[in-house]
């Protein structure tokens, strides 16, 4: 019998107790017409054999750890303190269920309450949920909420350079809900085209989504966008793909945005080939009953001790069913725990230091690219525009450039060609506190030679 299952003797005793000679008798209710024969799968493998198979998969990949890596475009490589994974590997955390029985789930519940608090602090908004799947679906949930809050308004505006994957997901969800999407482009400086945005706003718009820093790395001026959007009566949604930017840049919550949401993977979570990541969502108190996702609240037990419970559950699918604020059930609880641990370790100084170091490293790279002169094949797309830790380097053949850089041990960035012709051709280059000066110089030197 397999080591994950109970043994032969267990089975025999249980069969005796239920009065059956074999388990097949207990399966009689499954009709013959749907039965299958032996599954077309290999036989059971030992741990050693499974390891060999998976080491083979691992070796067939180019792990960024083995390169100087400047990859971004929605997933970023920041420090991952050792304590985080050590805590996550505690079975009490990762093999626990959703905390529906609070008396035996205070560990999970309190950690989520701390996560919600961190998200409120980062976003300068009143309430945050216990996590969503990722940045793309977080933005979708914000738009869906706006459509509920303003049911007569059926149009959504997406302003500026917005992550193309996130944009595609928004299309998928908005179409069946009868929501039309107007996309506003960017100007020569890489920021939202203000005139075009003004023309797009109207009293039929329920949500306006602005990503900042945007997909091209440029920092949007939320201080003017926020009031303009609020003035139009729509809900403002500040979408964040690089969450560590919130350590240096004021969030939409400061400028009147109704929602700040997006992706928190940057706080030390593994890139994991794109999942599981960590969606976060924060909003104003006024919208709390329209919020998607789980909420943990503080309360007292019958002897007056502080404790935590899932609350305001009537918004959710298991109670509200067809009228729920979201269909989400299983969310990304363990990823939220991971982020909570990392944020605890970084704390108020660390959150800012990580952002400053990432920004400084990117500024060093930008200066290096700028210094190559206007005749260089690789040049900054928006040399005058503020960026955080990511920027677009224009190049007429970025895929060939990337291949040459890789041959020199450098993962130089993400080519915009993979997102289609509507994007300026080039490389999105992201830098973090993990990129050394030596790595930066290697990239600059390679750009100069191979450019």
């Amino acid at each position, binding site marked *: 019998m397999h080591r994950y299952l109970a043994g032969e003797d267990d089975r025999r005793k249980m069969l005796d107790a239920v009065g059956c000679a074999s388990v097949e008798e207990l399966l009689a209710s499954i009709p013959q017409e749907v039965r299958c024969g032996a599954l077309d799968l290999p036989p059971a493998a030992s741990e050693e054999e499974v390891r060999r198979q998976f080491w083979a998969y691992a070796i067939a990949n180019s792990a960024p750890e083995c390169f100087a890596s400047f990859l971004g475009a929605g997933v970023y490589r920041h420090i991952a303190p050792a304590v985080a994974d050590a805590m996550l590997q505690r079975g009490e955390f990762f093999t626990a269920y959703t905390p529906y029985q609070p008396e035996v789930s205070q560990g999970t519940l309190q950690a989520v309450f701390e996560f919600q608090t961190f998200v409120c602090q980062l976003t300068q908004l009143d309430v945050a949920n216990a996590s969503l799947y990722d940045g793309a679906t977080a933005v979708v949930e914000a738009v869906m909420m706006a459509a509920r809050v303003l049911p007569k308004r059926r149009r959504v505006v997406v302003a500026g350079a917005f992550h193309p994957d996130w944009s595609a997901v928004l299309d998928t969800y908005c179409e069946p809900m009868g929501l039309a999407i107007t996309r506003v482009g960017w100007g020569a400086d890489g920021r939202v085209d203000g005139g075009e945005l003004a023309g797009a706003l109207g009293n039929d718009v329920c949500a306006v989504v602005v990503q900042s820093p945007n997909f091209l790395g440029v920092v949007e001026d939320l201080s003017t966008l926020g009031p303009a959007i609020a003035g139009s009566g729509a809900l403002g949604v500040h979408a964040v793909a690089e969450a560590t930017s919130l350590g240096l840049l004021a969030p939409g919550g400061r400028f009147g945005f109704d929602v700040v949401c997006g992706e928190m993977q940057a706080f030390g979570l593994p890139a994991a080939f794109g999942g599981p990541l960590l969606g976060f969502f924060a909003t104003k108190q006024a919208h709390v*009953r329209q919020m998607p996702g789980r909420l943990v609240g503080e309360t007292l037990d019958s002897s007056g001790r502080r404790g935590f419970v899932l609350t305001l*559950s*009537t918004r959710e699918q298991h*109670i*509200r069913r067809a*009228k729920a604020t979201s269909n989400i059930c299983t969310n990304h609880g363990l990823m939220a725990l991971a982020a909570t641990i990392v944020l605890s370790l970084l704390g108020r100084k660390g959150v800012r230091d990580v952002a400053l170091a990432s920004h400084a490293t990117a500024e060093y790279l930008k200066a290096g690219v700028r210094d190559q002169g206007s005749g260089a094949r690789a040049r900054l797309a928006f040399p005058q525009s503020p960026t955080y830790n990511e920027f677009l380097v224009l190049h007429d053949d970025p895929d060939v450039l990337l291949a040459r850089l890789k041959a020199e041990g450098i993962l130089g960035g993400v080519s915009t060609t993979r997102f289609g012709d509507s994007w300026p051709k080039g490389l999105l280059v992201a830098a973090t506190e993990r990129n050394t000066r030596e790595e930066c110089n290697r990239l600059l030197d390679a750009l100069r030679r191979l450019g």
Partner: protein
Amino acid sequence: MAQPNDRLYTKTHEWVKVAGGEASVGITQYAQEQLGDVVFVELPAAGKKVDKGAALGNIESVKAVSEVFSPVAGEVTTANGELEAHPELINRDPYGGGWLVRLSVAPGASDGLMDAAAYEAFLAEEGAH
């Protein structure tokens, strides 16, 4: 338990009391028992016009949400402002302080609804205890 005789009842467990063109609406003892402790009430604004049987609002407990259906056609004049800070009034005093809305109604608006005896018989039929 005896239902108050001074009002009429619906099959969806609302009560209505009409006097001089104004109707008061609430939910019954049975309804509040089923819901459990009320935590939040969503009520319409003054001026909202409703048909008989249309949704008036929602009452939330920890484990359920119940829609409230208007027993009469009319126009909302006031909603019970006390319920925002004290939703528990619905549990403690469903026929008094726990009233939900008042509507202005035309004569005969509450015709056809059940009286106390009929509602009690209805509850017994439903197997309510």
